C-alpha cells in the first residue's frame, strides 16, 4: 500500500527542549516497527509528528509518494490507538467506530459492512450499542483497536496501547495484537517503553535515546549485537553486566584474569559486556583459563532462575549471573565461565560497539 518514511525529523520546543534531534527511518508495508526507549527519549513525539498532531521543526514525512509534512492529521489517512484509548464517551461503540468513516462521507452500507467485519473479528458483536463507560478495560482497548482497523488506513500508529491493562490481560492482548497486525498490509509504528512488547511484536525495533536513533534492527540483533553501550544496558532484563577494564594488547585485564579480545586494540580501557543469562558455571575438567573464581554475595530468586551477585576474587568487580535454582548458592565460592561468543566489547569513550 504505502511506505512511511521520515527524513531528518527534528522537533525543537525551546533551545533546551529538543525531544527529537534528527531521525530518519523507513517503514515498509506490513512491517511492524517499534519505537523503544526510556521516557523522554522522543518516541511519543515521533509518533505525534507522524500523526500530524505536532509540526516538525525540520524534516519531512512521506507516506507512499505523498509529502504529508504540512497536511492536517485528518488528511493523512492514518489511524492511531491512544494509550488512554480516547473513546468518545458520549457515543455508542458503533458510533465511535463509524465517526471517522462518516466524516469521509462513506456510504452507510459500506460503513456497516466494515464495522460488522471488524467487530466479529474482535468479538465485539454484543457491545455495539453500549457506551464506553459501560465497558471493561479490555473491551475498551478492543474498541480502540477496532476504531483504527475499520479505517483501513495507510499507516497504523499505536501509542503504548497495552500500558493501561493489568499484567495478565496485557500478555493475552499482546498475543492478539501480533495476530491482528500480522495480516495488515500497511506500515505499523508502535511506541512502548516495555522491551518485552518490543521484542515479541516487532519485525524491527528502533531504540531511541535523548532524541537520537541508537539502533534500528531486528529484535534478535538488538539483543545479540547491541550497537552501543546504551542499547546493551537498555535491552535485556536483568541488565547486562558492563565492566570497564584496562587493556593490554590482546587482553583485557579482569583482576588476575586475562580476557582475550577478538582483535588487539589501541585503547587504554575497554568496556566488557556479558548478559547474566550467558554466564555459566565452569564444568569440572574444563580448562580453567577463562573461569573466574568468585564469591556469591547476594541471591535473588526470580522463580525460574536465581539471580546471583558475585564478586570476582581479589577484584572490585561484580557480575550478576542467572543460574538454575536447583542448588542453594548463598555464600558459595563458584567458578564462572565467560563464553567468548557471548561477549560484547564497547568503546568507553563513545560507547560504540568495537567488535
Amino acid at each position, binding site marked *: 500500500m504505502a511506505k512511511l518514511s521520515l527524513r531528518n525529523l527534528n522537533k525543537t520546543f525551546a533551545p533546551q527542549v529538543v525531544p527529537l534531534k534528527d531521525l530518519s527511518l523507513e517503514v515498509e508495508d506490513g512491517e511492524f516497527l517499534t519505537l523503544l526507549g526510556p521516557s523522554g527519549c522522543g518516541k511519543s513525539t515521533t509518533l*505525534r509528528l507522524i*500523526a*500530524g*498532531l505536532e509540526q516538525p521543526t525540520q524534516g519531512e514525512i512521506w507516506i507512499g509518494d505523498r509529502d504529508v509534512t504540512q497536511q*492536517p*492529521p*485528518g*488528511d493523512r489517512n*492514518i*489511524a*492511531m490507538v*491512544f*494509550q*488512554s*484509548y*480516547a*473513546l*468518545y*464517551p*458520549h457515543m455508542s461503540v458503533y458510533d465511535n467506530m463509524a*465517526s*471517522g468513516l462518516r*466524516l*469521509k462521507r462513506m456510504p452507510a452500507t459500506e460503513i456497516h459492512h466494515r464495522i460488522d467485519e471488524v467487530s466479529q473479528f474482535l468479538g465485539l458483536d454484543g457491545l455495539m450499542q453500549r*457506551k*464506553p*463507560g*459501560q*465497558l471493561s*478495560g479490555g473491551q*475498551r482497548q478492543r474498541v480502540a483497536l477496532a476504531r483504527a482497523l475499520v479505517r483501513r488506513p495507510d499507516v497504523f500508529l499505536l501509542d503504548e496501547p497495552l500500558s*493501561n491493562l493489568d499484567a495478565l490481560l496485557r500478555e493475552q492482548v499482546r498475543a492478539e495484537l501480533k495476530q491482528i497486525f500480522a495480516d495488515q498490509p500497511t506500515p505499523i509504528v508502535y511506541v512502548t517503553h516495555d522491551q518485552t512488547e518490543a521484542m515479541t511484536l516487532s519485525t524491527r525495533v528502533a531504540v531511541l535515546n535523548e532524541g537520537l536513533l541508537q539502533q534500528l534492527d531486528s529484535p534478535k540483533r538488538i539483543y545479540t549485537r547491541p550497537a552501543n553501550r546504551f542499547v546493551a544496558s537498555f535491552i535485556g532484563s536483568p541488565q547486562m553486566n558492563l565492566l570497564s577494564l584496562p587493556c593490554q594488547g590482546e587482553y583485557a585485564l579482569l583482576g588476575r584474569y586475562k580476557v582475550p579480545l577478538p582483535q588487539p586494540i589501541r585503547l587504554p580501557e575497554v568496556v566488557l559486556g556479558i548478559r547474566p543469562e550467558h554466564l555459566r558455571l565452569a564444568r569440572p575438567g574444563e580448562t580453567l583459563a577463562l573461569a573466574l573464581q568468585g564469591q556469591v554475595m547476594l541471591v535473588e530468586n526470580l522463580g525460574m532462575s536465581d539471580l546471583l551477585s558475585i564478586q570476582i576474587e581479589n577484584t572490585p568487580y561484580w557480575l550478576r549471573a542467572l543460574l538454575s535454582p536447583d542448588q542453594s548458592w548463598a555464600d558459595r565460592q563458584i567458578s564462572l565461565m565467560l563464553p567468548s561468543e557471548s561477549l560484547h566489547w564497547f568503546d568507553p569513550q563513545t560507547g560504540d560497539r568495537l567488535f
Partner: protein
Amino acid sequence: MTQLSPRQSSRSPSSRSNRRAQVVWMQRLGFGLAIGAIVGFSLAPILWQVLTSVKTTADIAAIPNVYLPRQFTAEHYLEIFRRQPFFNYMLNSFLVASLSTLLCLAIGTPAAYALARLRLPGESALLAGVLIVTLFPYILLFLGLLELVRMFGLANHYLALIVPYTAINLPLTILVMRSFFQQLPRDLEDSAKVDGYNTLQMLWQILLPLTLPALVTTGILAFIAAWNEFIFALTFITRESMKTIPVAVAQLSGTAVFEIPYGALAAATVVGTLPLVVLVLLFQRRIVQGLTAGAVKG
C-alpha cells in the same frame, strides 16, 4: 494494634460488640443532628416567607406571633397578580437573565477553552486580570455604568441590564469552564483530529456534548445571579412595564401609606424564587452526572 494484651483479649466479645454498636448509634445521631441544624439554619428564612405568604393578614400582624398558619389563604398570591402585572415582571426577568446567561456561555466558553488549551503568552497575566475583575467591588462599577448607560442612551432598554450582567458573570464562567476543560483528556481532541474532524466539528460534536454538565452548572449560577440582581435593575430601568422581579417585589406597596404588605411581599418572594428552584431541580441530574466517565481508563 495488631497484638492484644491478654487482659484485653479476655474481655467477653459480646460486651465489646455492644459498645461498638452504641458508638455507631451515637455517631449517627450526632450526624443527623448536625444535618438538621444546618438545614434548619439555611431554610428557616425561606420557610418563614412561605408560611407568611399563606397566612391571613390578621394572623401576620397578630401579637404574639402566629407561627403556623391557623387558616390557609391564597389571597396574597391572587393580590400580587391582580394589582400588578406580576407575570409580566417575571417575563422581563426571564428574558434578561436567560439572554445574559446565553451570552455569557457563548463568550466565556471559547475563552476558557483557549486559556486551557493554547500556550498563550501572558496567560497568567490574563487569568490574574479575570480574577481581579471578580474581586472588584461591584458597587464601584455602578456609577461608571450609569454614565455609560446615559451616553449610549440605553436607559429603559433591556440591553442596559443584559450587557452588565454578562460582564459581571463572565469571570466566573471563564474560571469554572477553564478548570473543566483542563481536566478533560487531551487525547480525545487528538483522537478527533486523527479521525478527520476539523476544529469546528470537533468543538461542536465531541467537546460540546462532554461539556454540557459544566455548561449547565455555570449557566445556572449565572442565571441566578442575573435573576436576583437589584441595583442595576432599579436604576437603569424606570418604566413600569419593563421592571424585573427583585425591583417589583421591593416596590410593592400597601393600600395605605403606612401599611407594609407583608403577605404580598412574602408571596412575591416565593413566586420570584420558584423559577430558580424549578430550574435547579430540573437540571440537578445533569449537574451531578459525570459524563466523562469512560472516556479514558476509568
